[in-house]
Protein backbone atom coordinates (compact mmCIF):
# COMPACT_ATOMS: atom_id res chain seq x y z
CA UNK A 1 0.00 0.00 0.00
CA UNK A 2 1.54 3.35 -0.97
CA UNK A 3 2.43 5.38 2.08
CA UNK A 4 0.22 8.34 1.13
CA UNK A 5 -2.86 6.15 1.24
CA UNK A 6 -2.08 4.33 4.45
CA UNK A 7 -0.85 7.45 6.22
CA UNK A 8 -2.41 7.84 9.62
CA UNK A 9 -4.40 4.64 9.12
CA UNK A 10 -2.92 3.06 12.23
CA UNK A 11 -4.08 5.96 14.38
CA UNK A 12 -7.60 5.90 12.91
CA UNK A 13 -7.87 2.12 13.19
CA UNK A 14 -6.65 2.20 16.79
CA UNK A 15 -9.13 4.96 17.72
CA UNK A 16 -12.03 2.91 16.31
CA UNK A 17 -10.85 -0.37 17.79
CA UNK A 18 -10.43 1.22 21.21
CA UNK A 19 -13.96 2.67 21.15
CA UNK A 20 -15.54 -0.65 20.12
CA UNK A 21 -13.63 -2.66 22.72
CA UNK A 22 -14.31 -0.21 25.59
CA UNK A 23 -17.99 0.06 24.58
CA UNK A 24 -18.43 -3.71 24.30
CA UNK A 25 -16.69 -4.39 27.62
CA UNK A 26 -18.83 -1.83 29.48
CA UNK A 27 -21.99 -3.18 27.81
CA UNK A 28 -21.01 -6.75 28.66
CA UNK A 29 -20.36 -5.94 32.32
CA UNK A 30 -23.62 -3.98 32.67
CA UNK A 31 -25.58 -6.56 30.66
CA UNK A 32 -24.12 -9.34 32.77
CA UNK A 33 -24.97 -7.68 36.07
CA UNK A 34 -28.47 -6.77 34.83
CA UNK A 35 -29.04 -10.24 33.35
CA UNK A 36 -27.96 -12.06 36.51
CA UNK A 37 -29.98 -9.78 38.82
CA UNK A 38 -33.18 -10.03 36.77
CA UNK A 39 -32.79 -13.79 36.38
CA UNK A 40 -32.22 -14.40 40.09
CA UNK A 41 -34.77 -11.92 41.47
CA UNK A 42 -38.32 -12.29 40.25
CA UNK A 43 -39.26 -8.97 41.87
CA UNK A 44 -36.50 -7.05 40.12
CA UNK A 45 -37.39 -8.70 36.84
CA UNK A 46 -41.03 -7.65 37.23
CA UNK A 47 -39.86 -4.11 37.89
CA UNK A 48 -37.34 -3.86 35.06
CA UNK A 49 -39.03 -5.91 32.35
CA UNK A 50 -41.61 -3.27 31.32
CA UNK A 51 -38.85 -0.63 31.18
CA UNK A 52 -36.67 -2.95 29.14
CA UNK A 53 -39.42 -3.86 26.69
CA UNK A 54 -40.58 -0.26 26.27
CA UNK A 55 -37.10 1.10 25.66
CA UNK A 56 -35.96 -1.80 23.47
CA UNK A 57 -37.74 -0.77 20.24
CA UNK A 58 -36.66 2.89 20.50
CA UNK A 59 -34.12 3.48 17.69
CA UNK A 60 -31.14 4.35 19.85
CA UNK A 61 -29.32 6.14 17.02
CA UNK A 62 -32.10 8.71 17.20
CA UNK A 63 -30.87 9.43 20.72
CA UNK A 64 -27.50 10.62 19.39
CA UNK A 65 -28.39 14.35 19.69
CA UNK A 66 -29.52 13.86 23.31
CA UNK A 67 -26.41 11.84 24.19
CA UNK A 68 -24.30 14.58 22.60
CA UNK A 69 -26.02 17.24 24.71
CA UNK A 70 -25.41 15.24 27.88
CA UNK A 71 -21.92 13.88 27.20
CA UNK A 72 -20.52 16.42 24.73
CA UNK A 73 -19.01 15.65 21.36
CA UNK A 74 -15.91 13.85 22.65
CA UNK A 75 -14.99 10.21 23.20
CA UNK A 76 -17.62 9.53 25.87
CA UNK A 77 -20.55 10.02 23.48
CA UNK A 78 -19.18 7.45 21.05
CA UNK A 79 -18.71 4.83 23.74
CA UNK A 80 -22.07 5.64 25.38
CA UNK A 81 -23.85 5.14 22.05
CA UNK A 82 -22.33 1.69 21.61
CA UNK A 83 -23.21 0.74 25.19
CA UNK A 84 -26.78 2.06 24.85
CA UNK A 85 -27.44 0.04 21.74
CA UNK A 86 -25.94 -3.33 22.68
CA UNK A 87 -26.48 -3.48 26.44
CA UNK A 88 -30.18 -4.39 26.26
CA UNK A 89 -29.64 -7.23 23.83
CA UNK A 90 -26.85 -8.62 25.97
CA UNK A 91 -28.91 -8.29 29.12
CA UNK A 92 -31.92 -10.10 27.63
CA UNK A 93 -29.73 -12.87 26.16
CA UNK A 94 -27.96 -13.37 29.49
CA UNK A 95 -31.17 -13.37 31.52
CA UNK A 96 -32.84 -15.90 29.20
CA UNK A 97 -29.74 -18.11 29.11
CA UNK A 98 -29.67 -18.24 32.93
CA UNK A 99 -33.37 -19.10 33.08
CA UNK A 100 -32.79 -21.96 30.63
CA UNK A 101 -30.19 -23.66 32.87
CA UNK A 102 -31.92 -26.76 34.33
CA UNK A 103 -32.94 -26.19 37.96
CA UNK A 104 -31.40 -29.52 38.90
CA UNK A 105 -27.93 -28.06 38.35
CA UNK A 106 -28.63 -25.49 41.07
CA UNK A 107 -30.26 -28.05 43.36
CA UNK A 108 -27.18 -30.25 43.45
CA UNK A 109 -25.18 -27.27 44.68
CA UNK A 110 -27.71 -26.01 47.21
CA UNK A 111 -27.95 -29.39 48.97
CA UNK A 112 -24.19 -29.16 49.51
CA UNK A 113 -24.60 -25.78 51.19
CA UNK A 114 -23.48 -23.54 48.30
CA UNK A 115 -23.68 -19.75 48.52
CA UNK A 116 -25.02 -17.51 45.73
CA UNK A 117 -21.53 -16.59 44.60
CA UNK A 118 -20.83 -20.29 44.02
CA UNK A 119 -23.93 -20.67 41.85
CA UNK A 120 -22.56 -17.82 39.75
CA UNK A 121 -19.06 -19.28 39.59
CA UNK A 122 -19.81 -22.96 39.00
CA UNK A 123 -23.16 -22.88 37.19
CA UNK A 124 -24.13 -19.52 35.75
CA UNK A 125 -20.85 -18.21 34.34
CA UNK A 126 -19.72 -21.35 32.52
CA UNK A 127 -23.29 -22.40 31.67
CA UNK A 128 -24.22 -19.24 29.78
CA UNK A 129 -20.85 -18.63 28.11
CA UNK A 130 -21.88 -20.10 24.71
CA UNK A 131 -24.99 -17.87 24.70
CA UNK A 132 -22.97 -14.82 25.74
CA UNK A 133 -20.54 -15.41 22.88
CA UNK A 134 -23.42 -15.79 20.39
CA UNK A 135 -24.94 -12.54 21.67
CA UNK A 136 -21.53 -10.85 21.37
CA UNK A 137 -21.23 -11.98 17.73
CA UNK A 138 -24.59 -10.39 16.89
CA UNK A 139 -24.03 -7.20 18.86
CA UNK A 140 -20.48 -6.70 17.60
CA UNK A 141 -21.74 -6.12 14.05
CA UNK A 142 -24.25 -3.60 15.38
CA UNK A 143 -21.59 -1.89 17.52
CA UNK A 144 -19.32 -1.35 14.53
CA UNK A 145 -22.20 0.12 12.50
CA UNK A 146 -23.04 2.51 15.33
CA UNK A 147 -19.41 3.44 15.68
CA UNK A 148 -19.25 4.38 12.01
CA UNK A 149 -22.18 6.77 12.36
CA UNK A 150 -20.93 8.38 15.57
CA UNK A 151 -17.45 8.87 14.14
CA UNK A 152 -18.83 11.06 11.42
CA UNK A 153 -19.55 13.72 14.05
CA UNK A 154 -17.26 15.75 16.25
CA UNK A 155 -13.99 13.89 15.75
CA UNK A 156 -10.98 13.79 13.46
CA UNK A 157 -9.95 10.29 14.50
CA UNK A 158 -11.46 6.94 13.69
CA UNK A 159 -12.30 5.01 10.56
CA UNK A 160 -15.78 6.51 10.30
CA UNK A 161 -14.24 9.96 10.01
CA UNK A 162 -11.51 8.62 7.67
CA UNK A 163 -14.00 7.05 5.23
CA UNK A 164 -16.42 9.97 5.11
CA UNK A 165 -13.56 12.48 4.86
CA UNK A 166 -12.06 10.59 1.89
CA UNK A 167 -15.49 10.27 0.32
CA UNK A 168 -16.15 14.03 0.58
CA UNK A 169 -12.76 14.73 -0.99
CA UNK A 170 -13.56 12.22 -3.76
CA UNK A 171 -10.45 10.25 -2.78
CA UNK A 172 -12.08 6.91 -3.53
CA UNK A 173 -8.92 4.88 -3.11
CA UNK A 174 -8.55 6.06 0.48
CA UNK A 175 -12.25 5.55 1.06
CA UNK A 176 -12.02 1.90 -0.02
CA UNK A 177 -8.92 1.38 2.12
CA UNK A 178 -10.92 2.69 5.09
CA UNK A 179 -13.83 0.38 4.34
CA UNK A 180 -11.54 -2.64 4.03
CA UNK A 181 -9.76 -1.70 7.28
CA UNK A 182 -12.98 -1.39 9.29
CA UNK A 183 -14.08 -4.75 7.86
CA UNK A 184 -10.78 -6.34 8.90
CA UNK A 185 -11.25 -5.00 12.45
CA UNK A 186 -14.70 -6.58 12.57
CA UNK A 187 -13.30 -9.84 11.24
CA UNK A 188 -10.47 -9.93 13.80
CA UNK A 189 -12.87 -9.28 16.67
CA UNK A 190 -15.11 -12.08 15.36
CA UNK A 191 -12.08 -14.33 15.28
CA UNK A 192 -11.28 -13.43 18.89
CA UNK A 193 -14.80 -14.50 19.93
CA UNK A 194 -14.43 -17.76 17.99
CA UNK A 195 -11.10 -18.52 19.67
CA UNK A 196 -12.65 -17.89 23.11
CA UNK A 197 -15.50 -20.19 22.12
CA UNK A 198 -13.08 -22.89 21.02
CA UNK A 199 -11.03 -22.65 24.20
CA UNK A 200 -13.77 -22.44 26.83
CA UNK A 201 -16.90 -24.00 25.31
CA UNK A 202 -15.63 -27.31 24.01
CA UNK A 203 -18.26 -29.06 26.08
CA UNK A 204 -21.09 -27.52 24.06
CA UNK A 205 -19.42 -28.48 20.77
CA UNK A 206 -19.07 -32.10 21.87
CA UNK A 207 -22.79 -32.20 22.49
CA UNK A 208 -23.63 -30.63 19.12
CA UNK A 209 -21.34 -32.99 17.24
CA UNK A 210 -22.77 -36.04 18.97
CA UNK A 211 -26.29 -34.88 18.14
CA UNK A 212 -25.36 -34.42 14.47
CA UNK A 213 -23.91 -37.94 14.44
Amino acid sequence: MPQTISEGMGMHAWASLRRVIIGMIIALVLGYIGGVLTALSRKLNRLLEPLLYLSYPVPKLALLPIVMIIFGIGETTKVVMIVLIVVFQLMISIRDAILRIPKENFFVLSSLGARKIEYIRHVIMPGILPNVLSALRVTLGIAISVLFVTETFGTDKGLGFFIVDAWMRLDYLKMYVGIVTISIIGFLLFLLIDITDLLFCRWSKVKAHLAMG
Partner: protein
Amino acid sequence: MAPRSLSLQNVSFKIDGQLILQDLSFDLSEGEILTVVGPSGCGKSTLLNIVGGNIKDYEGGVFFRNRQIDTWIRGYIPQHLGLLPWKKVKANIFLANKINKNIRIAEEEAFEIINELSIGDLLDRYPSELSGGQQQRVALARLFVSCPDILLMDEPFSALDAFTADTSRRLFLKLWEKRKITTIFTTHNLLEAVMLGKQIMIMSKIPGKAFRIIENPLLEKGLERNEENCYQMSLYLRNLMGEEFC
Protein backbone atom coordinates in the same frame (compact mmCIF):
# COMPACT_ATOMS: atom_id res chain seq x y z
CA MET B 1 -34.17 -49.84 67.96
CA ALA B 2 -31.77 -47.45 66.24
CA PRO B 3 -32.10 -43.82 67.32
CA ARG B 4 -34.39 -41.78 65.14
CA SER B 5 -32.20 -39.57 63.05
CA LEU B 6 -34.18 -37.92 60.26
CA SER B 7 -37.40 -36.43 61.43
CA LEU B 8 -40.10 -34.61 59.45
CA GLN B 9 -42.70 -32.91 61.59
CA ASN B 10 -46.00 -31.75 60.09
CA VAL B 11 -44.46 -30.63 56.83
CA SER B 12 -46.86 -28.92 54.42
CA PHE B 13 -46.12 -27.19 51.16
CA LYS B 14 -48.24 -25.24 48.70
CA ILE B 15 -47.48 -23.74 45.29
CA ASP B 16 -49.78 -20.85 44.33
CA GLY B 17 -52.41 -22.06 46.76
CA GLN B 18 -52.30 -25.64 45.47
CA LEU B 19 -51.47 -28.20 48.12
CA ILE B 20 -48.52 -30.44 47.27
CA LEU B 21 -47.77 -31.94 50.68
CA GLN B 22 -49.99 -31.88 53.75
CA ASP B 23 -48.98 -32.64 57.31
CA LEU B 24 -46.25 -35.07 56.39
CA SER B 25 -44.52 -36.52 59.46
CA PHE B 26 -42.18 -39.45 59.74
CA ASP B 27 -39.00 -40.58 61.44
CA LEU B 28 -36.24 -42.45 59.70
CA SER B 29 -33.63 -44.29 61.73
CA GLU B 30 -29.93 -43.70 61.26
CA GLY B 31 -28.38 -45.74 58.46
CA GLU B 32 -31.59 -46.85 56.81
CA ILE B 33 -33.10 -46.43 53.37
CA LEU B 34 -36.62 -45.13 53.00
CA THR B 35 -38.01 -45.76 49.53
CA VAL B 36 -40.87 -43.53 48.44
CA VAL B 37 -43.27 -44.85 45.82
CA GLY B 38 -46.20 -43.19 44.16
CA PRO B 39 -47.43 -42.01 40.76
CA SER B 40 -45.91 -38.99 38.99
CA GLY B 41 -46.95 -35.68 40.51
CA CYS B 42 -47.68 -37.06 43.97
CA GLY B 43 -45.00 -34.93 45.63
CA LYS B 44 -42.04 -37.32 45.76
CA SER B 45 -39.57 -34.84 44.27
CA THR B 46 -41.03 -32.05 46.41
CA LEU B 47 -40.28 -34.09 49.51
CA LEU B 48 -36.65 -34.49 48.42
CA ASN B 49 -36.37 -30.81 47.55
CA ILE B 50 -37.59 -29.85 51.01
CA VAL B 51 -35.09 -32.13 52.75
CA GLY B 52 -32.40 -31.09 50.25
CA GLY B 53 -32.87 -27.39 51.00
CA ASN B 54 -34.06 -26.41 47.53
CA ILE B 55 -37.50 -25.51 48.83
CA LYS B 56 -37.37 -23.26 51.87
CA ASP B 57 -40.88 -21.82 52.16
CA TYR B 58 -42.53 -24.94 53.61
CA GLU B 59 -44.37 -25.22 56.89
CA GLY B 60 -43.31 -27.60 59.66
CA GLY B 61 -39.88 -28.80 60.69
CA VAL B 62 -37.18 -31.02 59.25
CA PHE B 63 -34.46 -32.23 61.61
CA PHE B 64 -31.50 -34.56 61.42
CA ARG B 65 -29.86 -35.80 64.62
CA ASN B 66 -31.99 -33.20 66.43
CA ARG B 67 -30.48 -30.31 64.48
CA GLN B 68 -31.99 -28.21 61.68
CA ILE B 69 -31.60 -29.99 58.37
CA ASP B 70 -29.82 -27.01 56.72
CA THR B 71 -26.70 -27.58 58.79
CA TRP B 72 -26.00 -31.00 57.26
CA ILE B 73 -24.41 -32.06 53.99
CA ARG B 74 -26.99 -33.63 51.73
CA GLY B 75 -25.92 -35.60 48.69
CA TYR B 76 -28.57 -35.24 46.03
CA ILE B 77 -29.03 -37.09 42.74
CA PRO B 78 -31.84 -35.58 40.68
CA GLN B 79 -33.77 -37.47 38.00
CA HIS B 80 -31.48 -36.29 35.22
CA LEU B 81 -28.40 -36.64 37.44
CA GLY B 82 -27.53 -32.92 37.46
CA LEU B 83 -23.99 -33.37 36.16
CA LEU B 84 -22.61 -30.01 35.09
CA PRO B 85 -22.00 -30.40 31.31
CA TRP B 86 -19.27 -27.72 31.27
CA LYS B 87 -17.11 -29.50 33.82
CA LYS B 88 -15.10 -32.58 33.04
CA VAL B 89 -15.88 -35.80 34.91
CA LYS B 90 -13.15 -35.23 37.50
CA ALA B 91 -14.31 -31.69 38.27
CA ASN B 92 -17.88 -32.94 38.55
CA ILE B 93 -16.89 -35.65 41.02
CA PHE B 94 -14.91 -33.26 43.22
CA LEU B 95 -17.42 -30.40 42.94
CA ALA B 96 -18.59 -30.74 46.54
CA ASN B 97 -15.07 -30.30 47.89
CA LYS B 98 -14.77 -26.99 46.04
CA ILE B 99 -18.13 -25.71 47.23
CA ASN B 100 -17.99 -26.65 50.86
CA LYS B 101 -14.62 -26.45 52.58
CA ASN B 102 -15.96 -28.61 55.42
CA ILE B 103 -16.17 -31.54 53.05
CA ARG B 104 -12.86 -33.34 53.22
CA ILE B 105 -12.22 -36.73 51.78
CA ALA B 106 -8.86 -38.46 51.62
CA GLU B 107 -7.70 -38.64 48.01
CA GLU B 108 -7.12 -42.35 48.47
CA GLU B 109 -10.71 -42.94 49.49
CA ALA B 110 -12.04 -40.82 46.62
CA PHE B 111 -10.04 -42.82 44.09
CA GLU B 112 -11.15 -46.04 45.72
CA ILE B 113 -14.74 -45.01 44.99
CA ILE B 114 -13.79 -44.00 41.44
CA ASN B 115 -12.09 -47.35 40.84
CA GLU B 116 -14.95 -49.28 42.35
CA LEU B 117 -17.24 -47.61 39.82
CA SER B 118 -14.71 -48.27 37.00
CA ILE B 119 -14.67 -44.69 35.77
CA GLY B 120 -10.94 -44.03 36.29
CA ASP B 121 -10.33 -43.67 32.55
CA LEU B 122 -13.24 -41.28 32.01
CA LEU B 123 -11.99 -38.48 34.28
CA ASP B 124 -10.81 -36.27 31.43
CA ARG B 125 -14.05 -36.42 29.43
CA TYR B 126 -17.15 -34.23 29.42
CA PRO B 127 -20.43 -35.79 30.63
CA SER B 128 -21.96 -35.46 27.14
CA GLU B 129 -19.27 -37.82 25.83
CA LEU B 130 -20.45 -40.62 28.14
CA SER B 131 -23.21 -43.20 27.87
CA GLY B 132 -26.20 -43.10 30.21
CA GLY B 133 -24.74 -45.83 32.42
CA GLN B 134 -21.36 -44.09 32.64
CA GLN B 135 -23.03 -40.79 33.54
CA GLN B 136 -24.94 -42.63 36.24
CA ARG B 137 -21.70 -43.97 37.70
CA VAL B 138 -20.13 -40.51 37.65
CA ALA B 139 -23.17 -39.18 39.54
CA LEU B 140 -22.77 -41.98 42.10
CA ALA B 141 -19.08 -41.15 42.49
CA ARG B 142 -19.89 -37.47 43.04
CA LEU B 143 -22.52 -38.46 45.57
CA PHE B 144 -20.20 -40.58 47.72
CA VAL B 145 -17.11 -38.39 47.33
CA SER B 146 -19.09 -35.51 48.86
CA CYS B 147 -19.23 -37.51 52.15
CA PRO B 148 -22.89 -36.67 52.75
CA ASP B 149 -24.77 -37.09 56.02
CA ILE B 150 -27.97 -37.85 54.13
CA LEU B 151 -28.55 -39.23 50.63
CA LEU B 152 -31.44 -37.97 48.53
CA MET B 153 -32.05 -39.90 45.33
CA ASP B 154 -34.80 -38.87 42.95
CA GLU B 155 -35.62 -41.80 40.65
CA PRO B 156 -31.94 -42.03 39.75
CA PHE B 157 -32.20 -45.22 37.69
CA SER B 158 -35.48 -44.51 35.92
CA ALA B 159 -33.94 -43.22 32.67
CA LEU B 160 -31.71 -46.28 32.20
CA ASP B 161 -32.48 -49.51 30.37
CA ALA B 162 -33.34 -52.45 32.62
CA PHE B 163 -29.88 -54.05 32.41
CA THR B 164 -27.92 -50.85 33.10
CA ALA B 165 -30.34 -49.88 35.87
CA ASP B 166 -29.75 -53.24 37.51
CA THR B 167 -25.96 -52.83 37.35
CA SER B 168 -26.19 -49.27 38.72
CA ARG B 169 -28.45 -50.40 41.55
CA ARG B 170 -25.98 -53.11 42.57
CA LEU B 171 -23.08 -50.64 42.45
CA PHE B 172 -25.05 -48.21 44.58
CA LEU B 173 -25.88 -50.89 47.15
CA LYS B 174 -22.25 -52.02 47.28
CA LEU B 175 -21.05 -48.48 48.05
CA TRP B 176 -23.94 -47.83 50.41
CA GLU B 177 -23.42 -51.00 52.46
CA LYS B 178 -19.92 -49.80 53.39
CA ARG B 179 -21.17 -46.45 54.65
CA LYS B 180 -24.83 -46.96 55.64
CA ILE B 181 -25.85 -43.37 55.08
CA THR B 182 -29.44 -42.42 55.93
CA THR B 183 -31.20 -42.32 52.55
CA ILE B 184 -34.47 -41.24 50.99
CA PHE B 185 -34.93 -42.87 47.60
CA THR B 186 -37.91 -42.11 45.37
CA THR B 187 -39.01 -44.44 42.62
CA HIS B 188 -42.09 -45.54 40.73
CA ASN B 189 -40.65 -49.01 40.36
CA LEU B 190 -42.15 -51.17 43.11
CA LEU B 191 -39.55 -53.88 42.63
CA GLU B 192 -36.81 -51.32 43.25
CA ALA B 193 -38.65 -50.02 46.33
CA VAL B 194 -38.73 -53.52 47.80
CA MET B 195 -35.12 -54.28 46.89
CA LEU B 196 -33.67 -51.18 48.51
CA GLY B 197 -35.95 -49.92 51.27
CA LYS B 198 -36.03 -50.84 54.92
CA GLN B 199 -39.17 -48.77 55.09
CA ILE B 200 -41.45 -47.98 52.16
CA MET B 201 -43.56 -44.86 51.97
CA ILE B 202 -46.54 -44.99 49.66
CA MET B 203 -47.88 -41.66 48.42
CA SER B 204 -51.27 -41.24 46.78
CA LYS B 205 -51.83 -39.69 43.37
CA ILE B 206 -53.96 -36.99 44.96
CA PRO B 207 -51.28 -34.44 45.78
CA GLY B 208 -50.35 -34.40 49.41
CA LYS B 209 -53.56 -35.95 50.63
CA ALA B 210 -52.42 -39.29 51.94
CA PHE B 211 -49.33 -41.26 52.64
CA ARG B 212 -48.51 -44.40 54.52
CA ILE B 213 -45.25 -45.86 55.71
CA ILE B 214 -44.86 -49.61 55.95
CA GLU B 215 -41.96 -51.75 57.02
CA ASN B 216 -40.61 -53.61 54.03
CA PRO B 217 -42.74 -56.79 54.08
CA LEU B 218 -39.71 -58.81 52.96
CA LEU B 219 -37.68 -57.82 55.99
CA GLU B 220 -40.67 -58.13 58.32
CA LYS B 221 -41.17 -61.72 57.25
CA GLY B 222 -37.45 -62.41 57.42
CA LEU B 223 -37.27 -63.29 53.72
CA GLU B 224 -34.11 -63.08 51.65
CA ARG B 225 -33.86 -60.18 49.17
CA ASN B 226 -33.67 -62.37 46.10
CA GLU B 227 -35.45 -61.63 42.85
CA GLU B 228 -38.31 -64.04 43.39
CA ASN B 229 -39.17 -62.72 46.85
CA CYS B 230 -38.82 -59.10 45.76
CA TYR B 231 -41.15 -59.71 42.86
CA GLN B 232 -43.78 -61.34 45.08
CA MET B 233 -43.57 -58.50 47.55
CA SER B 234 -43.84 -55.85 44.85
CA LEU B 235 -47.10 -57.51 43.77
CA TYR B 236 -48.29 -57.42 47.37
CA LEU B 237 -47.39 -53.73 47.47
CA ARG B 238 -49.22 -53.08 44.23
CA ASN B 239 -52.41 -54.60 45.63
CA LEU B 240 -52.04 -52.54 48.75
CA MET B 241 -51.63 -49.36 46.71
CA GLY B 242 -54.54 -50.30 44.47
CA GLU B 243 -56.86 -50.72 47.42
CA GLU B 244 -55.96 -47.59 49.27
CA PHE B 245 -54.59 -44.94 47.02
CA CYS B 246 -55.06 -45.26 43.29
